[in-house]
């Protein structure tokens, strides 16, 4: 190609420049597309779990690592407390604190809240780069660039990594893909160097998210399939042995993980495959040294002996309880109906519901079409690393179908396989284009023959390439729309359009928490449903009874019993727990549908699931026809329980909508049944501007010992 003489931009340099440009655009795009909520509202931490992470990060930056590691928090789960140091994955907090300290060192005084808000978009830019590297190892660099572009905007990943969503998954996906990249490198090269890097990346992954169990099972499954299909070689042996040994020892340094890698069933698969690797290599070694007949005898004996010993050992250890069986959360992935029947707390979390087709399409758009194509390309020429990505794709597809939250784990592999598929189709059709053929004709010694079996080769190729480009454009439009509309809501600040098109902001949550912070004594204990625990400790700085960690089902059940019982019974429970204030969320005035009355049935189920709540039966709260109603047809048990009274106190005198009587609940679309009542054991302390948060003070014992009810 003619070029200006002094520029000397060779085709290779052009390629490098182009790749670098595309990758930087993807990184900047990945950061910017996650900023919708910061632009619409402000730089604020979203949801519930991130508030706990924010509080612990603040503690880490103020007190130092050793206090953080040994922290016992007595402000949560009163009167039990919580050992924070030993029950969290510290990777997220340590990462944020390190970057914060580094920025302060170079005199950029960023606030810790802003650091937490913007950490997830920063790491998603890094994820883009790692995805490019990983796909380049699996296929080629053009597929890598496509994969980087896909993962920058794919809604399935954005949903858990917007600015403000300061949660483990924000950095966990980066760590996971980094571990996989190093694993593929070590399988391809058989070097101990890459395997050790893989183990260090695995350690970072273990420190950041409980989903590391997926990695420590996927990598052994890959090795197992390589053994079964006869692809086992010294490279895989070196890679897996190093990764398993170094990785497990490193992972046990996290106190939350402790000795689980050698004690629980979730990690036994890795140990089993490790043993199998050693046996297979040893057998291969013996086969080379011994004669055929001797080898056959030895082979048969060892097979039966070792097989029998292993099976007996596993049985004995499982039956005697030394190896813990699969725990609830992971067991419900294998048997999805287990949580629904046995553990209501796990079943009640909306993120743990199974996935519908529309979630797949909504979160992945065009990638659901390109995923089979990518699988087809990988199956066409199977080798060691292709098998890994196939296994990753198939297993994560199943797990994402069981639990919506795991769509996050499916999104990267959809991007990678979708990119491989799209790249394959595009390259094979671009070769047919006339402009490409002209170049080939110039270079070849004779002109290319016109293919008689292929009519309109050029036109078809143009059509396919244009069509795919259109689909890619539609993917980008869809992703940006979904991000802007569905995944950029802070949940702590709500907004709605008023009748004349203006925007109303509902800042009731923060209003209530700051009221608590400024108007209650420092040692006040707040009772609320577990959803709001983290926010209360982080913003109101008060002691709470139960929070989102949900580690103690009995304690939560006690709170559920208090909410679902009559005032008299609930007063006993509240005196037992030393409760000073009770907080409920009520959406009937504004139409906010995630309020406590809609969650009430879960409180009833969880409250009735322990011994002391045996008097609470779910059917008591339904009408005789089996409906859950709050109007005058509703069940009397419901209309006299404490939760009902707290939510609807004084609501019977309020007009909420035109043409409706007073006390019209805008969420349940019904006029409430029990309108005119007084509270015996509670005093109303504060109700926010739009009645979303209502705080009540628990009355002290009566002066002369008379009962209050």
């Amino acid at each position, binding site marked *: 190609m003619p070029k200006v003489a002094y520029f000397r931009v060779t085709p290779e340099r052009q390629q490098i420049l182009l790749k670098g440009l595309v990758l930087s655009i993807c990184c900047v795009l990945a950061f910017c597309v996650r900023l919708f909520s910061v632009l619409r509202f402000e730089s604020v931490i979203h949801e519930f779990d991130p508030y706990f992470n924010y509080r612990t990060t603040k503690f880490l930056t103020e007190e130092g690592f050793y206090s953080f590691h040994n922290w016992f928090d007595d402000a949560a789960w009163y009167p039990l407390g919580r050992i924070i140091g030993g029950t969290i994955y510290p990777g997220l907090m340590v990462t944020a604190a390190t970057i914060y300290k580094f920025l302060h060192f170079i005199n950029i005084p960023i606030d810790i809240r802003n650091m937490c808000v913007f950490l997830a978009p920063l790491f998603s830019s890094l994820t883009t780069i790692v995805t490019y590297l990983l796909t380049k190892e699996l296929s080629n660099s053009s597929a890598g660039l496509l994969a980087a572009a896909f993962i920058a905007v794919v809604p399935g990943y954005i949903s858990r990594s917007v600015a403000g969503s300061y949660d483990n998954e924000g950095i966990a996906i980066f760590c996971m893909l980094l571990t996989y990249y190093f694993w593929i490198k070590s399988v391809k090269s058989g070097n101990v160097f890459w395997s050790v890097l893989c183990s260090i990346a695995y350690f970072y992954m273990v420190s950041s998210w409980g989903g590391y169990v997926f990695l420590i099972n996927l990598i052994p499954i890959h090795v197992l399939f390589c053994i079964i299909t006869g692809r086992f070689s010294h490279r895989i042996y070196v890679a897996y042995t190093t990764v398993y040994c170094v990785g497990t020892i490193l992972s046990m340094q996290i106190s939350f993980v402790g000795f689980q890698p050698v004690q629980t069933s979730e990690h036994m698969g890795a140990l089993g495959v490790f043993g199998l690797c050693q046996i297979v290599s040893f057998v291969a070694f013996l086969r080379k040294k011994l004669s055929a007949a001797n080898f056959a005898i030895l082979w048969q004996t060892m097979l039966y002996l070792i097989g029998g010993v292993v099976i007996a050992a596993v049985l004995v250890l499982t039956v005697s309880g030394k190896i813990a069986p699969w725990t609830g959360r992971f067991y419900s992935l294998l048997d999805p109906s287990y949580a629904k029947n046995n553990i209501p707390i796990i079943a009640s979390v909306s993120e743990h519901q199974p996935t519908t087709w529309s979630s797949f399409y909504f979160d992945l758009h065009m990638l659901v*079409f*390109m995923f*089979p*194509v990518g699988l087809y390309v990988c199956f066409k020429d199977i080798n060691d690393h292709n098998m890994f990505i196939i296994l990753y794709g198939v297993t994560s597809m199943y797990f994402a*179908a069981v639990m919506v939250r795991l769509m996050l784990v499916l999104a990267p592999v959809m991007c990678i396989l979708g990119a491989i598929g799209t790249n394959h*189709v595009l390259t094979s059709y671009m070769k*047919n284009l006339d402009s490409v053929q002209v170049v080939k004709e110039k270079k070849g010694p004779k002109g290319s023959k016109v293919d008689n079996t292929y009519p309109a080769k050029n036109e078809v190729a143009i059509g396919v390439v244009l*069509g795919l480009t259109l689909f890619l454009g539609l993917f980008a439009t869809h992703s940006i729309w979904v991000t802007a509309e569905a995944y950029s809501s802070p949940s702590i600040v709500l907004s709605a359009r008023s009748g004349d098109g203006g925007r109303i902001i509902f800042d009731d949550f923060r209003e209530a928490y700051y009221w608590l912070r400024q108007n209650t004594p420092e040692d006040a204990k707040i009772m609320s449903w577990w959803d709001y625990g983290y926010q209360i400790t982080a913003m109101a700085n008060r002691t709470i009874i139960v929070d989102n960690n949900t580690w103690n089902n009995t304690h939560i059940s006690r709170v559920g019993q208090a909410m679902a019982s009559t005032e008299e019974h609930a007063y006993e429970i509240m005196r037992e727990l030393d409760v000073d204030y009770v907080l409920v969320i009520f959406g009937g005035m504004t139409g906010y549908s995630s309020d406590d009355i809609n969650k009430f049935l879960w409180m009833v189920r969880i409250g009735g699931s322990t011994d002391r709540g045996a008097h609470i039966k779910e059917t008591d709260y339904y009408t005789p026809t089996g409906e859950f109603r709050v109007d005058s047809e509703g069940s009397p048990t419901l209309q006299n329980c404490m939760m009902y009274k707290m939510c609807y106190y004084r609501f019977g005198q309020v007009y909420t909508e035109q043409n409706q009587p007073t006390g019209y609940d805008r969420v349940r679309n019904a006029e409430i049944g029990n309108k005119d009542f007084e509270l015996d054991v509670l005093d109303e302390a504060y109700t926010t501007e739009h009645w979303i948060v209502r705080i009540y003070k628990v009355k002290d014992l009566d002066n002369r010992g008379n009962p209050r009810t």
Partner: protein
Amino acid sequence: MADCVYRSLFNVLECPNLKLKKPSWFRQPSAMAVFACVLVSYFIVTAGVIYDMIVEPPSVGQTVDEKGHAKPVAFLAYRVNGQYIMEGLASSFLFSLGGLGFIVLDKSNAPSIPKLNRSLLMFIGSLMVVVSFCMARVFMRMKLPGYLLS
């Protein structure tokens, strides 16, 4: 001495003459056969079959029109995290169809295929791709009436 024990033992017992062999029909499946199984499982999984098993929604919904007759409703509207059984199966059929369309397009690009076969394959492949894309978009619009509109 141990020899005597074993010899006397095996005078009474007789070792079974086992000839255990791997059955001949037990072969490693070809790559494309495994791919076909994976594609079938993809169809089942993206239909939301696990959601159907846990939540047990009806096969189609029902609404009442002005005259009081019950009309079937295909899509559970306004909610992305709920579905009826039929809509799930129809949509995952579209997803698999789109993927297969691209595979057919790839196969029709091979070097030596008779002209008629090639044109037919191209036509079917592009039809599958276009139809599944457009139908998926229409389905999503039916499910979320505000899709791509605000």
